[in-house]
């Protein structure tokens, strides 16, 4: 048997076959392979291979994972949980953040996409510090400061979003500033929009009229839903009408999606969030007086008439403040019961399963896929840890 290992001339395996072999390796092993030879290093730390690897990852069923980010004992905890064929939401792995957080309470998740996390940390009287981080390859970078005066910044309502533009194979962060004339009044001007692009490493202000949203204020808290190549928030117009504000990351233009109209006898309902639901989006609507939540799903993305309400309302689990934080791949809703544990609710059978994970107000839940994105970037402020 040892003879067969003596002189194996594999050298002539064509590059595309070598990279095909690499796509079957776990990420850690792929990283080890960069130390095998110069050729292998250049094959792996290559944007084309990283895209192929990502595509392969998306298609591999057992790679579907759910990311949870929460605070435990004032410390940030990042865990990945299995999604497919796993009713128990078993923890797959966990990460430690390399970012020195000034105060985890001020940490916001801007979004996750293709294995990258976009996080923002804010301190009073400071610009947000925004980071892009891939925990699988242990690389992160901090975005440059925004090109706006702090005074303007401080007086504005800020919203951020993060996503991927497949047309240019680029990752973008969007910042929307709504200048406040006075407390609670978002003024009569259209918000200012800036876009950061990972490929250029710079912020760019959008000026074309079509690239600006209508006069409105974003009311949804937390990260926007990134679906169908666009970011989605709940926004409100001057005459108190709520709608879904959409920013197409590729074309860099804003659209609007109408929310379903409701007869007034249903009581005062408020749209609170938009979440990704499969290839489309879902909206959460809360009854103001008792906190009851209705979930609506846009069955056909972009078609306002296809908004469909779940037959059952979200259960209220003892506390008045139960709210959904995302969906599992199987359609179950993950509910956060303030100060208590996360549960998974089946909207059809109404079955509730305790996930035995303690949640708190900042808990983030989103889909995740392991990738090598950022692995080819050796310069431009990318930190390896």
């Amino acid at each position, binding site marked *: 048997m040892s003879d067969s290992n003596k002189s194996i001339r594999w050298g002539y395996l064509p590059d595309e076959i070598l990279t095909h072999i690499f796509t079957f*390796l776990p990420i850690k092993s792929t990283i*080890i392979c960069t130390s095998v030879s110069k050729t292998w290093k250049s094959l792996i730390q290559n944007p084309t291979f990283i895209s192929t690897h990502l595509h392969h990852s998306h298609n591999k069923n057992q790679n579907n994972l759910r990311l949870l980010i929460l605070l435990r004992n004032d410390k940030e905890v990042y865990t990945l949980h299995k999604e497919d064929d796993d009713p128990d939401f078993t923890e797959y792995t966990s990460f430690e953040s390399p970012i020195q957080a000034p105060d985890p309470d001020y940490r916001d998740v801007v979004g996750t996409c293709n294995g990258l996390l976009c996080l923002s940390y804010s301190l009073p009287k400071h610009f947000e510090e925004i980071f892009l981080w891939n925990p699988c390859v242990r690389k992160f970078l901090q975005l440059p400061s925004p090109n706006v005066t702090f005074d303007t910044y401080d007086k504005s309502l800020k919203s951020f979003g993060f996503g991927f533009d497949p047309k240019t194979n680029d990752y973008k962060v969007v910042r929307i500033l709504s200048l406040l004339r006075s407390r609670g009044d978002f003024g009569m001007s259209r918000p200012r929009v800036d876009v950061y692009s990972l490929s250029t490493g710079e912020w760019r202000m959008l000026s074309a009229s079509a690239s600006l949203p209508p006069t409105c204020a974003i009311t949804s808290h937390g990260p926007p839903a990134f679906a169908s190549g666009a970011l989605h928030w709940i926004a409100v117009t001057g005459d108190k009408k709520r709608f879904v504000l959409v920013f197409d990351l590729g074309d860099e233009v804003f659209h609007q999606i109408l929310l379903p109209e409701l007869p007034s006898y249903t009581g005062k309902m408020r749209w609170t969030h938009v979440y990704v639901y499969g290839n489309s989006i879902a909206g959460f609507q809360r009854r103001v007086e008792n906190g009851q939540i209705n979930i609506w799903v846009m069955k056909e993305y972009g078609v306002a008439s296809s908004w469909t309400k779940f037959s059952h309302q979200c259960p209220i689990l003892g506390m008045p403040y139960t709210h959904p934080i995302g969906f599992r791949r199987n359609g179950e809703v993950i509910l956060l019961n303030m100060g208590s544990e996360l549960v998974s609710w089946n909207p059809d059978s109404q079955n509730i399963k305790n996930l035995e994970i303690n949640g708190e107000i900042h808990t983030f839940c989103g889909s995740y896929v392991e990738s090598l994105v950022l692995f080819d970037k050796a310069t431009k402020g990318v930190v390896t840890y």
Partner: protein
Amino acid sequence: MKFCTVKQYFDDENNNNVTNGIATTVIPLPNKHLKIKANNKEMEQYEQELLRNVMPQELTKLILAANYLNFKEALDFFCRTVANAIQNKSVDYVRKFFGLESDFEPGEEEKLCKEFAWSFEGVDED
């Protein structure tokens, strides 16, 4: 299966022994694959058997044959087999497996190993 391509491949191939090896391993693969597709454990056992009975040089030829024949399932299967064989192994093990030598400048390799030190944690002993 594309019969014309298969025939042409065998006509081109000079070495009859290699051809026979491929004929007995690659061709029956689709049926085998279908039979044991559902059962991952069986597939793993088949992979182990394949690694034991097939010489690494032949595994190269099998990969190239599957690629030439445009036989995606076989190509995926062989590539996955190789990936499983080198998974979580050290750089030296992988080099020996592929018969490669380091072509890094002195110091370059140390730098890489230091940069990605965390990825070498828990690697199988050689």
